[in-house]
């Protein structure tokens, strides 16, 4: 049986009095497209930085395809490509130079040039290959950052919020490229602001809250567990009848979201509103999505998902 791409055992991290990670256990198989979700401060980036060797854990260990990220850091890092969250770049060099340097640090030379060209092409950077990094737009810098993480052709790729601040068109393009990498056998681990991305792309999802994993399952199973429909009613500023208050999952600007187990409950809610003489201004019926799962697990504080 092959080694898991990532194996995380009992990771704790303390920053002074702050217990940032409280015993994380997680195993990600080779070839998975895995999402790590959680609100700001949940500990996702800390976990990724421990995986990347940028932060030392207070306890526990992480291995990449069987290589411990501390004890066998050279082997572990050879297998890992990490896209940092911050938009960092080296202003002295152009895109192609940076990719060649990055591949070179991992022991790859000119024989790697065909792969560098493939990345440049795949990420729409080919015509910017000889442009200095500081002259690139924000979106182009983001692509270059991803390209750098891929330069040494790592089998495991970690993307820490790769689409933060990226426009829709570029996001689509990036995901097509990442999907192709996954299809070619690369393991992908990502954190994202966009839950619909995790839902569409990822086969498995872990949700973190305050340094702990609060949900870990196949995306489809997680959605099934929280199956049901959501009825969104625009009612304005009203006092809801007692009988339906319990079904309300979310309220915002006079829009009430009711979680329903079956269609028959629609009539029950509407009839209660009619009895209370509350007028329905607008109505929408939706299937539960990852955002609903996320909100119910992490709470409404998670509205600004990170």
């Amino acid at each position, binding site marked *: 049986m092959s080694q898991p791409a990532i194996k995380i055992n009992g990771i704790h991290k303390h*920053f002074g009095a702050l217990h940032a990670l409280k015993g994380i256990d997680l195993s990600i198989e080779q070839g998975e497209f895995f999402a790590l979700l959680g609100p700001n401060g949940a500990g996702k980036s800390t976990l990724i930085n421990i995986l*990347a*060797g*940028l*932060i*030392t854990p207070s306890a526990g260990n992480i291995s990449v*395809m069987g*290589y411990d990220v501390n004890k066998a*850091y*050279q*082997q572990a*890092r*050879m*297998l*890992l490509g*990490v896209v*940092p969250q*911050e938009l*960092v*770049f*080296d*202003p*002295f*060099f152009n895109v192609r*130079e*940076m990719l*060649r*340097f*990055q591949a*070179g*640090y*991992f*022991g*790859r*030379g000119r024989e790697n040039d065909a792969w560098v060209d493939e990345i440049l092409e795949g990420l729409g950077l080919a015509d910017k290959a000889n442009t200095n990094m500081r002259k690139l737009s924000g979106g182009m810098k983001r692509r270059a950052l991803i390209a*750098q*993480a891929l330069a040494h052709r790592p089998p495991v790729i970690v993307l820490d919020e790769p689409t933060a601040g990226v426009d829709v068109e570029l996001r689509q393009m990036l995901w097509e490229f990442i999907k192709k990498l996954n299809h070619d056998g690369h393991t992908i681990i990502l954190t994202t602001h966009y839950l619909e991305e995790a839902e569409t792309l990822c086969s498995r999802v872990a949700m973190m809250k305050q340094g702990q994993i609060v949900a870990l399952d196949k995306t489809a199973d997680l959605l099934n567990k929280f199956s049901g429909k959501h009825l969104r009613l625009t009612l304005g500023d009203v006092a809801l009848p007692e009988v339906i208050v319990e079904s309300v999952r979310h309220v915002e600007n006079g829009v009430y979201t009711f979680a329903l187990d079956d269609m028959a409950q629609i009539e029950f809610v509407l009839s209660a509103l009619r009895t209370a003489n509350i007028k329905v201004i607008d109505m929408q019926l939706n299937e539960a999505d990852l955002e609903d799962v996320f909100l119910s697990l992490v709470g409404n504080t998670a509205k600004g998902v990170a």
Partner: protein
Amino acid sequence: MINASANNWRGPWTLLKKELLRFWRVVFQTVAAPVITALLYLLIFSHVLESHVEVYDGVPYTAFLIPGLIMMSVLQNAFANSSSSLIQSKVMGNIVFILLTPLTHMQFFLAFLIASIVRGLVVGLGIYLVAMWFVDLSLANPWLIIAFALLGSALLGTFGIIAGIWADRFDQMAAFQNFIIMPLTFLSGVFYSIHSLPPFWQKVSLFNPFFYMIDGFRYGFFGKGDVSPIFSLAIVGGAFLVLALITLKMLKSGYKLRS
């Protein structure tokens, strides 16, 4: 099995190449400017003091001054190379590109060290070549000249790595440069022999490691110095070893680079 040691030389060589290219891309700032500065010192001090001061018998003041100016520039530029590269990478955040690689702390150290030595020597050679127009310099012991240039630039390159890792902001780095490097180089006998100082300051100078680098380097040109060149070589070599060990320890522990 992943063989991280395969092509092991290529990783550190790439980092060295990047560091060399980094200063070469701004060669006017990193090489031409210090050469011009040293020549201005040479023109002014030799003009003012040439007819008034003779430090060693038969050695004109201008000739005496040149090795000191060369070594001062070698040391300052070796320090500037590693320290500025690291502080810039830290402040801009692109140091992460190196921290994510399988490079060992020794490879990291050697790449930054050699780049610093190269910049120091290129600046020193530039000043020497231009200074040859002004005065005919003797080369009493070229091996001593090479040894002190290499060890001196290595010592300051290493010190630059320590400063670059320690400093979090550009003003902290400027403080390092202005309150440690500049006074120690200016008070090391670049412009004078310590024998011309009052006895107290002579003694103080003996505690300045820069003095031994300048004096030993100058000894290579004239065969004369304030102290024995072998003693100076031992002091400079010892100081380099101590700083190199401290740097390697800092890099291995990830001090200020990894948390």
